[in-house]
C-alpha cells in the first residue's frame, strides 16, 4: 500500500462523510434517514468482496499448499464478517427508522444473517483445529463450500420470503434505486474508499499473521 494512498483515503473518506450530510438525501420520501445508504451499501458489498477473496485464497492454498494463502483467507473472512456486521447493524437501525422494527426477516436481512452464520462457523472450525496444515486445508475446503451457497442465498431466499415492503422504499439494494447526479458521485466515491480501506486492512492483517507465525517459530 503506497504511503500517499493513506492520505488520499483520509481526504476522500472525510469528503464523503461531509457530503453525505449536506447533499440532498438519496431517497426523497424517506428523507434524511436514507443517508445511511452511502455507508450501508458499500459495507454490504465489500463483505461479499471479502468472502470472494477468501474463496480465491482458499483455492490458491489447495493448489499450492503455501501457508500464506491460508492466512490471507482467514484475514479476508475476519474482515468480511466485520463489514457484514457493520452492514447488518446499520441496516437494522435504518429498518427501525423507516419501517418501525429493527428486524423483520426481510430477504436481504435473512441472506446477510446466514452469511454471518456460515463464516462464523468457518472461524469456529479454525479454532477447533490445532495442526497448522490440517487447519489450512480443511478450512479452505469449508470456505469453498460456503461460497457455493452464496448464489442460492442471493437468488432463492428472496423468492421464498417475499419482501413485506413496497419496491420503492427498498433502499440498500442498489438495483431498484435510481443513482443520479450527486448521489451517484458520492456513492461511488464511498464505494472506492471502502474498497481501499478493505484492501489496506487485509494486507496489514495478513502480514501480521505471517510475522506472528515467524516469531513463534523462532521461540
Amino acid at each position, binding site marked *: 500500500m503506497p504511503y500517499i494512498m493513506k492520505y488520499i483515503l483520509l481526504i476522500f473518506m472525510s469528503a464523503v462523510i461531509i457530503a453525505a450530510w449536506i447533499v440532498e438525501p438519496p431517497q426523497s420520501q424517506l428523507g434524511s434517514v436514507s443517508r445511511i445508504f452511502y455507508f450501508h451499501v458499500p459495507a454490504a458489498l465489500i463483505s461479499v468482496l471479502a468472502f470472494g477473496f477468501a474463496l480465491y485464497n482458499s483455492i490458491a492454498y489447495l493448489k499450492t499448499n503455501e501457508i500464506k494463502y491460508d492466512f490471507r483467507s482467514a484475514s479476508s473472512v475476519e474482515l468480511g464478517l466485520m463489514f457484514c456486521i457493520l452492514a447488518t447493524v446499520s441496516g437494522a437501525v435504518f429498518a427501525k427508522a423507516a419501517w418501525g422494527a429493527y428486524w423483520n426477516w426481510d430477504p436481504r436481512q435473512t441472506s446477510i444473517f446466514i452469511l454471518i452464520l456460515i463464516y462464523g462457523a468457518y472461524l*469456529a472450525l479454525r479454532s477447533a483445529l490445532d495442526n497448522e496444515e*490440517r487447519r489450512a486445508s*480443511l478450512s479452505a*475446503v469449508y470456505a469453498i*463450500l460456503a461460497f457455493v451457497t452464496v448464489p*442460492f442465498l442471493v437468488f*432463492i*431466499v428472496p423468492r421464498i*420470503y417475499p419482501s413485506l415492503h413496497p419496491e420503492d422504499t427498498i433502499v440498500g439494494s442498489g438495483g431498484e434505486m435510481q443513482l443520479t447526479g450527486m448521489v451517484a458521485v458520492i456513492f461511488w466515491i464511498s464505494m472506492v474508499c471502502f474498497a481501499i480501506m478493505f484492501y489496506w486492512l487485509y494486507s496489514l492483517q495478513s502480514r501480521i499473521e505471517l510475522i506472528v507465525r515467524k516469531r513463534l517459530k523462532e521461540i
Partner: protein
Amino acid sequence: MVKSISGFTAAAAAVIHKDIVSEFRTRYAFNALIMFSLVTLTVVSIAIGRFNLTADLSAAFLWVMVFFSAVSGLSQSFVKEEETRTIISLQLYAEPLTIFAGKLIFNCILMLFLESIFIPLYFILLPVNCGNLILFLLVIVLGTIGLVGTTTIIAAIVAKSSMKGALFAVLSFPILLPLLVAAIGATETSFSGGSFGAASNDLKLLISYPVIMIVASTFLFEYIWNE
C-alpha cells in the same frame, strides 16, 4: 485413479456393506439418531399436540426435527473411523472417492431407515393430515438426499477436528438453511393437498442444491482425505 467403473462400484459397495454390518453390530450412529428423534418428537407433541397446527407449522416442525436428529448422528460415519483409527487403513488402501460414495449412500440408507420409523410416529402423535401423499414421500426422499449430500463432506471435515459433535451442527446448519426452507415449503404444499406444479419451485431447489453440493464435494473430498 479409478481403474474401472466396476472396480469403483465394487469398492463403494464394500464400504456400504461394511458400514451396514458394523452399524448393525454396534449401533454406533443409529441409537443416537433414533433416540434423539423420538425425544424431540415427544417434546414437540406434548408441547403443541393440543393445538390445531396449520400446514406450514406442521411442515416446519417436521423438518426441524429431522434436521436436528440428522445432525446428532450423521457425523458418526466418519467420526467412528477416526476414533477407532481405522481411517488410516482406508486412507492407505482405498480410492478417496469410493469412500465418499460409500459413506454418502450409507448415510442415505441410515436416514431413510430412521424416517421409516419416525414419520409414521409423527403422523400418529401430531394432528397432521397429508393431502398429497406421493408428493410428500417424494419431498422426504429428496430432502433426505439433500441433507446427506450436503453434510457428508462436513462430517469428513469435522472428524479431523477436536470438538466433533458441536462443530458438526455449527458447520452444517447454515449451509443447510436454503434446503430446509425449500423442504418446508414443498411439505407444506403436500400437506395442504397442493399439486406437483404448486411445489415445482421448491422441488427445483431440492434437486439442484444437493447436485451442486455433491459435485463440489467430489472435487474437494480428496483435499480433506489426503493431508
